[in-house]
């Protein structure tokens, strides 16, 4: 079956049945209009209408800190590469974040493959959730063409009032449906409602910035020496919030930690950020992106230019998190607008 139907009243059954078997994470409120993905036991805390969570779901695919290696220095040194992972269902992922996960998939599947990521990823079932309307003024998902579902999920929920239409995309998705036994068959009238909603959505979601999707790459190509970066240099406070909250940023640092017995130790990988001052410093003392503006530019280019050459896709999903969280009001849409004006 391609599409199924879930009555809203049954959402709680769906979640709690799943939660009995494995970890289920879903968006919950953190107050102050903010949300985060957290473990839930039932649907009571889940907020269906949420703006992008503080951290994207990447925290489950690539945790803030993870062990890569365990070693024992006694008895002639032994070591073992490990991955920490857990079966789970990730519920309520917006289309922008689905795109973010796809970006990470691509980056980590490229050879040499990163098994820590890939093994963990395979343990996570993804249930998407459609946005029927804009989250807030920071979103630019339409510009990035991520406002409609584009794969990357096992099940995809669209909220149509009393019920959800559920797209079943994978066998795993089908299994979730079979296992929980709370879904019904979707008939033509339901599909019509879905189509109507989508049509309406097309009217709401317009390119947030006055530029064609295709023109983004050329725009950044010719903006190498733009004054906009000098402007950002003055404003950025290098708090690295923009990269930490970005669903497609995956830079990391690797550190060793020895226990106090000085025998057992671990090698960790932690999120790192190209906005941090020491990120590109080498032993001679030279730092290759010393100015904050250069680092900001690097961030933008890693979203709009470099990945185009490498993976033929943008790494910005349009989720708007970086602008939402920036301490210094640096706004992605504004930056693009400034570049357009400057080049016009």
């Amino acid at each position, binding site marked *: 079956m391609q599409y199924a139907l879930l009555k809203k009243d049954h959402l709680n059954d769906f979640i709690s049945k799943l939660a009995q078997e494995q970890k289920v994470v879903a968006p919950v409120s*953190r*107050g*102050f*209009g*903010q949300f*985060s993905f957290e473990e839930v036991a039932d649907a009571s805390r889940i907020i269906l209408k949420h703006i992008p969570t*503080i*951290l994207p779901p990447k*925290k489950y695919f690539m945790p*803030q800190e993870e062990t890569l290696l365990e070693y024992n220095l006694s008895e002639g040194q032994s070591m073992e590469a490990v991955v920490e992972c857990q079966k789970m269902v990730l519920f309520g992922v917006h289309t922008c974040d689905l795109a973010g996960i796809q970006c990470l998939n691509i980056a980590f599947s490229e050879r040499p493959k990163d098994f820590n990521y890939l093994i963990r990823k395979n343990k996570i079932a993804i249930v998407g959730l459609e946005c029927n309307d804009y989250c807030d003024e920071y979103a630019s998902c339409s510009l990035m063409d991520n406002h409609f579902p584009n794969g990357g999920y096992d099940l995809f929920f669209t909220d149509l009032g009393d019920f959800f239409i559920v797209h079943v995309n994978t066998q795993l998705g089908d299994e979730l449906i079979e296992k929980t036994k709370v879904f019904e068959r979707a008939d033509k009238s339901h599909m019509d409602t879905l189509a109507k909603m989508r049509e309406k959505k097309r009217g709401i979601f317009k390119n947030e910035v006055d530029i064609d999707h295709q023109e983004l790459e050329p725009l950044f190509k010719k903006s190498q020496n733009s004054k906009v970066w000098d402007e950002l240099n*003055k*404003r*950025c*406070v*290098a*708090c*690295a*919030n923009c990269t*930490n*909250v970005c669903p497609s940023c995956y830079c990391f640092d690797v550190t060793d*930690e*020895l226990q*106090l*017995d*000085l025998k057992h130790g671990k090698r960790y990988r932690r*999120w790192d*950020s190209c906005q*941090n*001052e*020491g990120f590109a410093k080498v032993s001679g003392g030279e730092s290759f992106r010393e100015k*904050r503006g250069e680092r900001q530019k690097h961030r933008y280019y890693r979203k709009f230019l470099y990945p185009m050459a490498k993976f033929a896709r943008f790494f910005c999903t349009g989720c708007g998190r970086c602008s939402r*969280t920036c*301490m*210094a*009001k640096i706004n992605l849409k504004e930056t693009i607008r400034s570049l357009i004006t400057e080049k016009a």
Partner: protein
Amino acid sequence: MKKPKVAFFDFACCEGCQLQIANMGELLLDVLHLIEVVEFREVMSEKWDKDFDIAIVEGSITTEHAVERIKKLRERCKVLIAYGACATIGGINGMKNNFDLDKIRQTVYGKDYKYFATIKTQPLDAIVKVDYYINGCPVYIPEVVKVLKAALAGLPYAVPDYSVCVECKLAENVCMYEKGVTCMGPITRAGCNSWCINNGNLCYGCRGMVSNPNQNGAKDVMEKYHISVDAIKNKMDMYNTCRELKDEQKKR
């Protein structure tokens, strides 16, 4: 391997950072397996008058007598660790530098104030060379352990030079500024895992400032969140007053 001799000393401080050592639990026994503590006045009666390898020094310098004492200490040890905010940046004791020293002494001690010798609060490195810094008020045990291991191995330890916001975001806190609260996180050195924000309070800046804060950018931040310069200055004057003192000294 001979165990390195380690001694703890304190100057003006609350001794909370030394207490953190006792709070390590049985981990402490692991530490004591690696080092020989020769002096630790707070919990030991043993005294040591010879040289030793590592001095772990808590507290800030607030009297002339202390200036002489820390200089002598420095001569006796190979490695000196500044331990806790008071030692690394002057700490809360630095707040008195906001006042006229005579006036503040009068406030507290009345007419007898002259008995209380005091000088402007200074961190240890204003007077002697410091080899390792363990920031924080109080120190963060995981970092203590890290630095201790580095010091024992004679390897460098670099305090993170990025802001508390980095760790705060990783902990997925709702930003204090979103709540309308002025937080020192953006200009404070990380390393505490955003301890205070994780527990619902704001960052007071106890770990000292990042080396290269963007003064200009701070204006945008204040504008975005409608906060006044005074609000920031007020918080700066809690832990970071000695910074100015240091800048002055550098100029001299």
